[in-house]
């Protein structure tokens, strides 16, 4: 009997296919195309304590097999999320993961505290709340906060430690490929009590509009995602998976069942789909079905059989 089920940091998922933050909204828009119950989980759009308008100007630009984005964490803020989105999300039979950013340490801590409190309150009322937190210390598209916390290990340590202090929810830290040393960063997260790490967020990157003689993006740099970065993401996941014993969630350019298998063989406990959702609106359904078929064909009953075998 084939089973795709997995348990990430104490959260059971029916399969390891999770929708990545910022590429799936809060799941509403995709409902019509992919039944949420098919998915392992959905990570919501990156949240901050206060609502954010995001960046001005061009936000999306395609590169060779890659996508540059400079959305800049536009989001309704944690309070509005809890009020307007969470009920809907928790109705679906899929793990609900909240992705949290912040302009400073205080904001991270407050945002996480609010969500944790909310989850506890809901539990007392026998209602589902947020299942898991993904701490985003790796957004390259905001001037303050975001990636600045994710580059140097010692700076990140503070955030992870303080957030860990205020939450009992399963906590995954999302790492940046722009980190000075991503392995060291992951080891730090494990030491500070994170329940898992997810990687990678986007690469800081650039495109110049040569006609107008200025950067395409008002923020000068933007974040690169998509198939272009997959080989680098895979290497990083492999390195990190060998260095820590908490679950590693692989992210970066995943666009096929083969890619999922590669990340799993490199040690990923689950994976996230980002840019591929834009390429194929029904990505989630396609990949869940495809993964099951692959397991059947290859007589792999559980992904544990191939996880980390490289």
């Amino acid at each position, binding site marked *: 009997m084939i089973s795709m089920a997995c348990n990430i940091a104490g959260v059971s998922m029916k399969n390891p296919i999770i929708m990545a933050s910022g590429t799936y909204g809060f799941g509403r828009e995709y409902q019509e195309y992919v039944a949420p119950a098919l998915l392992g989980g959905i990570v919501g759009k990156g949240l901050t304590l206060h609502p954010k308008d995001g960046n001005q100007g061009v936000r999306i630009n*395609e590169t060779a097999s890659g996508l540059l984005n400079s959305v800049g964490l536009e989001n309704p803020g944690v309070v509005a999320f809890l009020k307007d989105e969470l009920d809907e999300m928790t109705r679906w039979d899929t793990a609900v993961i909240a992705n949290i950013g912040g302009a400073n340490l205080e904001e991270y801590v407050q945002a996480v505290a609010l969500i944790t409190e909310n989850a506890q309150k809901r539990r007392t009322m026998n209602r589902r709340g947020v299942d898991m937190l993904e701490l985003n210390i790796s957004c390259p598209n905001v001037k303050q906060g975001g990636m600045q916390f994710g580059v140097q290990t010692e700076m990140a340590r503070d955030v992870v430690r303080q957030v860990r202090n205020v939450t009992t929810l399963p906590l995954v830290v999302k790492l940046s490929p722009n980190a000075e040393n991503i392995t060291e960063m992951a080891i730090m997260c494990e030491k500070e009590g994170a329940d898992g790490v997810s990687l990678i967020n986007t690469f800081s990157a650039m495109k110049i509009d040569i006609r107008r003689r200025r950067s395409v993006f008002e923020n000068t740099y933007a974040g690169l995602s998509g*198939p272009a970065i997959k080989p680098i993401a895979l290497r990083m996941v492999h390195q990190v998976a060998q260095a820590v014993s908490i679950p590693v969630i692989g992210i970066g350019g995943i666009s096929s069942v083969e890619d999922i298998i590669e990340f799993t063989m490199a040690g990923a406990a689950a994976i996230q789909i980002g840019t591929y959702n834009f390429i194929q609106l029904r990505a989630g359904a396609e990949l869940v079905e495809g993964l099951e078929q692959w397991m059947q064909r290859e007589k792999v009953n559980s992904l544990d059989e191939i996880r980390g075998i490289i």
Partner: protein
Amino acid sequence: MAMAMIISNEALAPQIYVMKVQGDYKGKMGQFYMLRSGMSYPLLPRPISIYDIGEHDISFLYRVVGEGTQQLSKLLPGQEIKLEGPFGNGFPQVEGSLGLIGGGMGTAPLLLAAKHYPHAHVYLGFAEQSFGVEAFQAVAASVQVKVGGSIVEQVNPARYKYMFSCGPTPMLQALALQTVGTSSRLYISTERHMACGIGACLGCTIRTRTGNRRVCKEGPVFPVEEVELDDLHGM
């Protein structure tokens, strides 16, 4: 993505193509589909307005500007195309006198509106060469065409209770200025680079008086007074 078969894909003018695709497709004037060939390059599908809808087919009028549209233009009848839609809000249902003002490729989404409102006056402006004019002439009471110069000069907003417009930013801005002080209500169709097309990625937002709005979801059509006109930067 949903696969469909191409019925025809022909050049109307240099770099301007009409593609007809087989199938029962839905869609209202001003809505769009996301189109891509079966290749894995380029990455993203391209937003293209609905040009026309038949009983068992849908058509798109498009200009070859980069690799995505170039690839579309090379597809042949019988080959497959992937498309999803219809997306966006489209032009509103209105009553009363109506002007349709299109510039260049911006004429594409107006054909369905012209069919829907046969009494509308149509204004079509082109930079160098006109295309697709006959399709409007076949359905509209009045069609004015200008090649070179500004079609906006020929429009008297005071004559229309409503105006729908789509075209290059300078044209939209000129028309907006001309409308100021009249009681005419102008709706414009806007463009943004898009990724998801369904409102999830926030890649296509435009600034409006009431905050960011998604061109793919709340748009592409907005009442002109909502949009910050200086945010209509060409992409």
